[in-house]
């Protein structure tokens, strides 16, 4: 019983076929990773809702006009590169007294490292950043400002988590992140309707 050898299939053209497929995928592939600034829109409010009364010192007002100039707190002309620092100082101020905060179920901000200026924000949970732009503002400026404001929160959250857990905010687990997001430095950026 002699074993009969089956003839081998010629695999020489295999490379050609594979190359053809390879080139097809090379051409159709898009390697761009989608990244961006994530924001959440506010829910639609009923018409008759009364806006809550806020103390002016708890609001950090940022205005952008149609010439892409930035006005902070109504009287201060500012460059984009200084905005983050100003926002950090405002959020992290923690100037509220124990009695005043107790009325609203809050304690004095023990993790704040700000100047405790009574004329600035009371507590990170009360600190609101209000952003108003013009319809004619360029998208680039708008994104830069958003970026700096979100960046201010990122800096503060990272600082807090480094001190408490010894690692960056991004590396904390879900529960720890949630705690910081809700109780320590909640991100409150309110956007007003743009001016016409």
């Amino acid at each position, binding site marked *: 019983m002699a074993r009969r050898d089956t003839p081998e299939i010629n695999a020489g053209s295999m490379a050609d076929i594979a190359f053809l497929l390879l080139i097809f995928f090379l051409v159709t592939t*898009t390697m761009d990773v989608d990244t961006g600034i994530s924001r959440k*829109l506010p829910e639609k409010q009923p018409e008759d809702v009364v806006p809550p009364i806020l103390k002016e010192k708890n609001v950090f007002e940022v205005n952008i006009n149609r010439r892409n100039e930035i006005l902070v707190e109504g009287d201060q002309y500012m460059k984009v590169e200084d905005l983050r620092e100003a926002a950090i100082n405002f959020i992290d101020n923690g100037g509220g007294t124990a009695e005043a905060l107790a009325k609203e179920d809050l304690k004095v901000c023990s993790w704040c490292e700000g100047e405790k200026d009574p004329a600035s924000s009371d507590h990170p949970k009360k600190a609101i950043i209000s952003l108003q732009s013009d*319809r004619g503002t*360029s998208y*680039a*400026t708008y*994104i830069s400002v958003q970026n700096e404001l979100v960046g201010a929160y990122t800096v503060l959250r990272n600082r807090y988590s480094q001190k408490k857990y010894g690692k960056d905010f991004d590396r904390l687990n879900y529960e720890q992140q949630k705690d910081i997001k809700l109780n320590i430095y909640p991100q409150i950026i309110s956007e007003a309707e*743009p001016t016409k």
Partner: protein
Amino acid sequence: MAKFGKKKKGTPGISTASLPDIVFMLLFFFMVTTVMRETSLKIQQPVLPKATEVKKLEKKSLVSYIYVGKSKDGTPGDKIQLNDRISNVEEVKSFIFAERAERKEIDVPKMTTSIKADMEANVGTITDIKIQLRDINALKLNYSTRKGSALDNIKN
């Protein structure tokens, strides 16, 4: 002497037997990483602004894209592209509804809208889109940006 004289000259050919293996490896890599382009742009390719505080968009299948940019033929004003054509702002609602209908109901709250807008677009256009999105409760939003210093956006 004759024994040595028969020695062949010239370099031996390189074996190409492993070439298909290498090519296949590359092929599989591209097959796995490839994402087919779904839409072709009818507007000029938007130049995305740069930002540092970026997050990666996860679950690409749950993302709907809205493009904002200049038109190709040079007519002024920002153009909005939904799917494969240039649309009005009012059509954003029906676009999102159509996108929702394609997904499973359980995934609808996780859906994100990504705005890919040109650096020179106006905030007014973006706001109009945002109002439309808010009206139909599509609240998760992502401003598509490239990674880089935000200060590069503003040329003084």
